[in-house]
């Protein structure tokens, strides 16, 4: 056998395997996208995907994807200032919640804003929940699928963390009257708030904070919150009494892994749970960052049974981040694909990858989409950040820096 070329020596090479690219939209030159993606069917019948931006100056962008081959930007809004970001959003019918996080503490606006998006070209603000404070950066991530409650990773004026990096915790906010959101419950990892009667957690060598990230709640178990807690691992919370969430179980992989647990997706019918890490260090310094498959038949005793395999990290060590981040979350909306046999995840310069978990002990890679580096990509690679699949099984994935929106068909 001969091998004249080697990606190990040649760096990043685009690959498309079992995906078909339908369209690519750089979103008017503002293609640095965050981790909020949600599909609305507008009152006039158009299918609109709402996208959060990674950083200022843009707030959110709406794209008409009725014809996935011809996406059309219908709305793009600006943030009030550059020291904030709106990294996360969700829609439910014609309501949209957008998370606001400031770059420093005690800045505003920090919290989340509610919009009436019945006219996608002209989203109208109808409510705001203030989370600002001397120790708060506001809301990093939110979950909003039932039209009634926003579950979010947020700071608060009255929350003084034991470590400045532990400022965001789980909060549940009643938005049934969108103009007057009211907090109904909260939970934080014991030891992360001043005054707790337990010791603060031991910091990790790569210290990313013991704070909340994703706060998923599903109608199959409305009494459960699946809470990722970055360096604290993950928690299953009993929220049957929203005012008093209680810990049911805790699972962590770090140490020896390098923390930053990001998302929990329960697969209810199968008694499985998907857990993702986020890679946050360039040049694969925090490798391996993985998607973990947990046997969750007993929610009080979660057992890791597999991880989704990744290629040799040395291939990707040259530039940018490499490793797991977001996955399609089976968001409980009629516009979201529901599937418990395929996992789609974004891996920064590892692109978008799909895994068949029909045998959950042996996840098998079935698709790769690593497009060429978009023009102006600061790392010289794609940095795939988030993925959403609509009920038509059309895949939307976004680049973190400049590439904007890629629309794909699964071909496996």
């Amino acid at each position, binding site marked *: *056998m001969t091998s004249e070329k080697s990606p190990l020596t040649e760096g990043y*090479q685009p690959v498309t395997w079992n995906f078909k690219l339908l369209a690519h939209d750089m979103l008017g030159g503002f293609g640095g996208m965050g981790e909020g993606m949600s599909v609305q069917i507008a009152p006039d019948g158009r299918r609109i995907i709402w996208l959060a931006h990674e950083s200022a100056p843009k707030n959110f962008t709406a794209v008409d994807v009725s014809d996935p081959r011809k996406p059309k930007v219908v709305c793009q809004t600006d943030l009030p200032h550059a020291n904030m970001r709106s990294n996360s959003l969700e829609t439910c019918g014609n309501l949209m919640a957008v998370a606001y996080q400031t770059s420093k503490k005690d800045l505003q606006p920090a919290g989340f804003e509610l919009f009436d998006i019945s006219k996608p070209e002209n989203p109208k603000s109808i409510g705001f929940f203030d989370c600002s404070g001397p120790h708060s950066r506001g809301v990093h991530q939110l979950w909003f699928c039932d039209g009634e409650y926003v579950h979010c990773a947020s700071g608060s004026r009255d929350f003084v963390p034991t470590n400045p990096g532990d400022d965001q915790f789980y909060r549940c906010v009643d938005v049934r009257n969108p103009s007057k959101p009211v907090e109904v419950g909260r939970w934080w990892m014991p030891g992360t708030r001043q005054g707790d009667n337990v010791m603060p957690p031991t910091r990790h060598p790569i210290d990313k904070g013991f704070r909340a990230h994703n706060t998923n709640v599903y109608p199959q178990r409305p009494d459960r919150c699946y809470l990722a807690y970055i360096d604290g691992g993950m928690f299953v919370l009993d929220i049957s009494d929203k005012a008093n969430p209680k810990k049911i179980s805790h699972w962590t992989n770090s140490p020896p892994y390098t923390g930053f647990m990001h998302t929990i997706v329960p697969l209810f019918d199968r008694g499985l749970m998907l857990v993702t890490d986020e890679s946050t260090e360039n040049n694969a310094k925090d490798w391996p960052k993985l998607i973990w498959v947990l046997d969750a038949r007993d929610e009080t005793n979660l057992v890791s049974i597999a991880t989704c395999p990744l290629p040799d990290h040395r291939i990707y060590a040259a530039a940018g981040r490499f490793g797991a981040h977001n996955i399609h979350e089976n968001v409980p909306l009629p516009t979201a694909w529901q599937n418990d046999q395929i996992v789609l995840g974004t891996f920064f310069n590892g692109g978008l990858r799909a895994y068949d978990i029909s045998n959950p*002990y042996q996840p098998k890679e079935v698709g790769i989409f690593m497009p060429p580096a978009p023009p102006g990509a600061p790392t010289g690679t794609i940095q795939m950040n988030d993925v959403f699949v609509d009920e038509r099984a059309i895949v939307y994935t976004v680049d973190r820096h400049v590439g904007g929106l890629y629309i794909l068909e699964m071909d*496996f």
Partner: protein
Amino acid sequence: MLDLFPSREASPFGRRLKRERGARIPVTVVTGFLGAGKTTLIRRFLKSPEGQGTAVIVNEFGAVGIDDALVRDSAEETVLLGNGCLCCITRTDLQAALRRLIFDRERGTVPPFARILIETSGLADPAPILQTFSTDRALGGEFHIDVVLALVDAINGGTSLDDAAEARKQVILADRLIISKTDLATPAAVERLTQRLQELNPRATIDIAVAGALDPSRLIQPVPRERSNFVAEAEHGDGIASFVLQPDGPIAWPTFSRAMETLIAMRGPDLLRVKGLLDVAGCRGPVVVQYVQHLAHPPVELDTWPDENRGSRVVFITRNLRERQVRNLFAAVQALTEE
């Protein structure tokens, strides 16, 4: 695994697939007698957009690897199996080469190829090659034969078919037949050869390549599964016959699988290739079944039927085994399992 972790979306045969190969790497096997024009055809294919990302495995029969030298510059990766005929001597080499390609692809030391093309020696019997992909569990999980293609040249093809059982078998087992060098033959000779090929393999599509020029998609597009206008039992000489079973209505999986188990146990070596779609009771899509001699590929259920015909259709290519015998066996098993 479904017992422990059940899924409402899963078929009894695992994840429902959009297409037969699922996510496996597609393989094209190019057969054809010596001098039929395989290398020319492959070189042109590799230069076409459709040929991008193809890894080629060349089997040479003889001391000088001329064919390998011709394709190496075009292919993403070329593997030369230089020590004999692919079918009988170097099958282990083929397995090793395929394993190595997968390994290197995962390690990133070869580019991420999207397809494998195997050019066989002119003398190769394709049956053992097909068997390789079902015998070897790991290979069967990674690769899927999309197309078996046989080249027959318009000048010497007739003689090869007369003289060599391997040439006849190549034609009989192919999904797609390509007649080459038609520019050098008379229209009447081409017509005679076409007729002969249709008699030998009535299921295969027949294309004409002029000076190696052929729509490149013909090397990669799977042939539509067991076309419904299939002709009745055909005798090909050498005791080889082909026929199609088309059971009426949904068939219970235990009936089909037990009939096949019995057939394999008693006449496995004579089942050269069995392939088709089954309407299995309780399944919403067709179930793809495939056997090569005594080996069964794992059945898979597809999302949807490929055409309006929802009926089962399974093609048998057999040696010294008649349609009537197989039908009787299926009827007997059905009678017993219905009790």
